[in-house]
């Protein structure tokens, strides 16, 4: 078993196709959608964790490509050096997926890695430089 994180972009004509349904049913994959941005008549984007047998994942990705889906694998991830963080919140101003939010009670930064789409905006924005990308 293996888990990969993948971004799928697709054009309006295939937006409505139940892509994830096929991944689950035909390839026996577990699909955990982390971020979805799908609207009618515009480019859709899904970010998901896909878990399953390596060979099935390969086949599933091949199927997606055949459907005209633009696939990008996340090989990098964001590292938050929490000890250095001053919890200013500047990074939450740019995070597009609410992976970074302020806890309204403690006013601590919370980082929900699952929702992160590795856009790296926080890396550039953090004034203290405690956000970085793993290589």
């Amino acid at each position, binding site marked *: 078993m293996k888990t990969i994180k993948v971004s799928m972009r697709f054009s309006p004509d295939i937006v409505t196709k139940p892509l994830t349904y096929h991944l689950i049913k035909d390839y026996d994959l577990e699909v955990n959608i982390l971020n979805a941005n799908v609207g009618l008549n515009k480019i859709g984007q899904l970010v998901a964790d896909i878990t399953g047998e390596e060979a099935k994942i390969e086949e599933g990705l091949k199927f997606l490509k055949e459907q005209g889906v633009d696939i990008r694998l996340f090989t990098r991830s964001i590292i938050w050096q929490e000890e250095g963080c001053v919890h*200013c919140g*500047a990074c939450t*101003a740019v995070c597009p997926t609410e992976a970074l939010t302020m806890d*309204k009670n403690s006013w601590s930064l919370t980082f929900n890695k699952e929702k992160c789409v590795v856009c790296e905006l926080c890396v550039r924005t953090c*004034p*203290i430089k405690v956000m970085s990308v793993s290589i």
Partner: protein
Amino acid sequence: MGYKSIDEINEKIKSGKAVVFTAEEIIDVVAEKGIKQAAKEVDVVTTATFGPMCSSGAFLNFGHSDPPIRMCKVWLNDVPAYGGVAAVDAYIGATELSETRGMEYGGAHVIEDLIAGKDIRLYAESYGTDCYPRKEIDTYINKTNINQAFMFNPRNCYQNYIAATNTSDRTIYTYMGTLLPKCSNVTYTTSGQLSPLLNDPYYRAIGVGTRIFLGGAQGYVAWEGTQHNPGQVRGENGVPIGASGTLAVIGDLKKMDTRFIRAAVFPKYGVTLFVGIGIPIPVFDEEMLMYTAVKDSEIFTNIMDESVPSRARPALGRVSYAELKSGFVMLNGKKVPTAPLSSIKKAREIAELVKMQIMKGEFLLAQAVAELPRENKVNTLDIREGDN
């Protein structure tokens, strides 16, 4: 009728009997006991802020070399410091950029590294004089081998500030953080109900000589800050709506702690310094207590369009800090996410720390020796011909 003088409060602090609350805790205390009773019981309310404050820096005295030098141009880790004062004095400003590393490292980083006890490369040039023959020096300094190192910040601790957004079609990079196109975010930068001057709107308690917590050390209010603008529009509760009063503060850099002073880089804008300030407010009467009990829902500011490259930026709406802190505000009928730039968590940590220091008798209050101006007008810089 006043209840207590600073001397009386200090006596209580010394005997470990002072009753102290933070400016957040006092809200509930007042709600529960009422102003009259709470004013009798409470001695001090602690306020704090931890935010980016560009107008910061430090005076350093390096001591004399042999043969001595009258330093004219000074660099610290390749960041220019101002040497136009006496022979071995210099001022390192927080926003100055490194001549070799640019925006990645600046005066604020030099200050943080000094506080951390790191060695800093000092390079200085001079034209040489009869009494100071040396023309160049290249050495290392740190906070233990130099003489004085005191932070002197001409403008800190803004009493309220704007909230910012961007109506243009492109992302803009500002001192208010990264502002996304088409009003997709709003940033704000005060700790609201915890912030020092929002708890003392008419400067009744805070004045020249007030002892404060500055970056982990005890420091003082030195003067009104630059651009101090008490004439700002105020609400019925006296709290200004937008940027208004400011403080110039001073304190011993050698005793500071990097937990409360941090260098910061705002992308494509520049280097600045996160400064942690705590100010205890003596509850000498009911009126003072009433001011310290101010809540986020009673403090307002204007949302400004930072994409307009002009001094007179248009205000797009008025919001309370309760709204800003809720995570979103309504702007032209649209729900827009908000983000703070000053750390409320750190401000709380400071307010709590000062409270504990007072309760343990380690922090005595100082009577202000002069009041901050309550009226004045801010001048603008106009481009004009000289008089002669």
